[in-house]
């Protein structure tokens, strides 16, 4: 166990250089892009030069580069990502606090859908390899993988919202329902405050976006699980299990565990991408998450916001890879060196 703790600590420390490298990159890119950020943020509006100068001073853009670099870094350490260039007085950290829970909620829900469908179809395909069922699962994976999210989303909205009238078309919660915000995850908040009306509504709002995103992402899992599991199922140790008279169902579980490492790797990668915001899904369902936020801010040329989001995102990527490493170690004893 001491080995495991040391291993995880080492991995945790690796987050720091990851974030530093990413931050430095964004910082440099932001500074080498031609044009003045303040002018860009204001667009074509005419602003007197004195006022531009004032804005630059306010955002510290007149400081020497190294001062800017370290000032911002000191802020990041306190979870402060600076102030919006476009909306005066708006802290980027507050924006993230508003938007991130929506993204996290959608990420978790679509993750459950994609892993659930992907594992089930992949296992079926591997166990019945070469059968018609296998072919069906492989076709599913390709179709799911190639579906265009706004198209699938619109179709689902058309069926479940417009025709059947079962589910809402957009947003996270009916504005007429009040919900006390504790975590920002509406489903969790509703459970914590025992607000069952809000829980039902929040879940109803979550179904279609989670299903849309989940289905599209599930195709890759189907393939990955099928490939790795069917390889594990013909391996020597599976034959040895059989030779000892172990039941097929138990053998399947052992083989599955042996084929899980690449699957966990992909889970981590997808999770990381999803936490950055699923732009297409969020815009299709007017889901107020990080993806649509970033899109808005890029369009508005809000440089500090973009920089803040990227740095925040690098933290998330680091955190996810730490979790993935921990899961690796739990699955495979050979990793716990």
């Amino acid at each position, binding site marked *: 166990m001491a080995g495991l703790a040391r291993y995880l600590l080492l991995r945790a420390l690796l987050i720091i250089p990851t974030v530093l490298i990413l931050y430095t990159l964004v910082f440099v890119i932001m500074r080498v892009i031609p044009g003045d950020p303040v002018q860009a943020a204001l667009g074509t509006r005419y602003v007197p030069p004195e006022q531009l100068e004032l804005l630059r001073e306010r955002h510290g853009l007149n400081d020497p580069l190294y001062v800017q670099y370290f000032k911002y870094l000191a802020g990041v350490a306190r979870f402060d990502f600076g102030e919006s260039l476009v909306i005066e007085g708006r802290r980027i950290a507050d924006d993230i606090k508003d938007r991130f829970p929506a993204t996290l909620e959608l990420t978790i829900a679509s993750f459950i859908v994609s892993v659930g469908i992907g594992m089930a179809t992949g296992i079926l395909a591997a166990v019945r390899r070469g059968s018609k069922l296998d072919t069906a699962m492989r076709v599913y994976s390709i179709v799911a993988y190639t579906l265009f999210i706004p198209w699938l989303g619109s179709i689902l909205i058309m069926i479940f919202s417009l025709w059947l009238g079962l589910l809402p078309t957009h947003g996270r919660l009916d504005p007429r329902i009040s919900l006390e915000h504790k975590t920002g995850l509406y489903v969790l908040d509703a459970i914590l405050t025992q607000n069952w009306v809000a829980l039902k509504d929040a879940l109803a709002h979550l179904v279609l976006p989670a299903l849309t995103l989940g289905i599209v992402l599930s195709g890759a899992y189907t393939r990955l699980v099928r490939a790795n599991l069917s390889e594990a199922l*013909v*391996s*020597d*140790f599976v*034959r*040895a*299990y*059989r*030779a*000892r*008279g*172990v*039941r097929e169902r*138990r053998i399947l579980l*052992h083989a599955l*565990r*042996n084929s899980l490492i690449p699957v966990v790797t992909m889970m981590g990668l997808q999770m990381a991408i999803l936490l950055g915001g699923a732009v297409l899904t969020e815009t299709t369902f007017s889901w107020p998450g990080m993806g649509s936020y970033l899109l808005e801010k890029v369009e508005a040329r809000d440089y500090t916001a973009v920089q803040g989001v990227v740095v925040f995102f690098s933290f998330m990527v680091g955190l996810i890879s730490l979790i993935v490493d921990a899961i690796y170690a739990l*699955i*495979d*004893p*050979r990793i716990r060196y």
Partner: protein
Amino acid sequence: MALLRIEDLNIDYMTLRGRLRAVKNASLTLGEGEWLSIVGESGSGKSTLAMAIPGLLLPPGRIASGRIIFQGRDLTGMSRDELRRIRGSEIGVVFQDPLTSLDPLRTIGDQMVEAIMEHRAADSKREALEMASAALESVGIPGNRVKYYPHQLSGGQRQRVMIAMAVMLKPRLLIADEPTTALDVIVQASIMRLLKSLQRKMGMSIILITHDIALAAEVSDRIAVMYAAEIVEEGPAEQVIEEPLHPYTEALIKSTPDLWREKTLYSIPGNPPDLRNPPSGCRFHPRCHKAFEPCKSREPRPTRIRGRTVACHLYG
């Protein structure tokens, strides 16, 4: 009564290019406490024949016809679950590569306990764990190694673990499929000694699959030689080695390296045939220096001669 009787067994592999008969009309008898070695080149069907006994043929292999009578019951007619119950308890199997035959993610003890519990050979996991460590002790591995993961053991130790797993429920038959091929020579000898002593202690029968006829000569009571899916000769080990009847057996013995004989090594001319398209008549005739008229056209029938069975036109 014989422990195992194989009668006219045919095994096919269904391949994309058609049916391939990997074992043809095989018949064998194995007595209680007897050691039989099946010898042949790679692709001769020896492993396929052995794996068919406990129902471990890998798809697309399947038994086309014939019977496998084990302790008076036909294994080929059994349901999958009946066969599963026999595997591990009455028939143990040791595989070629101990490095890949253990689940790398679970401790040796976990893997052993699972099998013991599947056969209801212990009342509690604790008792099963005690059985597991006793089984390890019996193959010369300290009992506390049950807590080890496979990667913490050497190749030779892992093969001992595989043997412990195969014999822990005291099977009547142990099938060892090239158990020493993946190991170095010194470890090889110690593994063979271990198998021999376990056989004496437990009185079980052993079927050893090997390409090494010299090794088979040392340890076996009987030897069966396979060539191109057929058993060409079978009999008491000493007789088969001292006075081989089938020209293929003779060639096989001549092509075994000998440290004290400074001669260039004999090799059988030609290559083993393609089983999708075997030669007419006797399958060995294109490579046989004693081949004569009937060999090309007629298949030789297995004949009993001097306590042996041989399929060759020279003898009838």
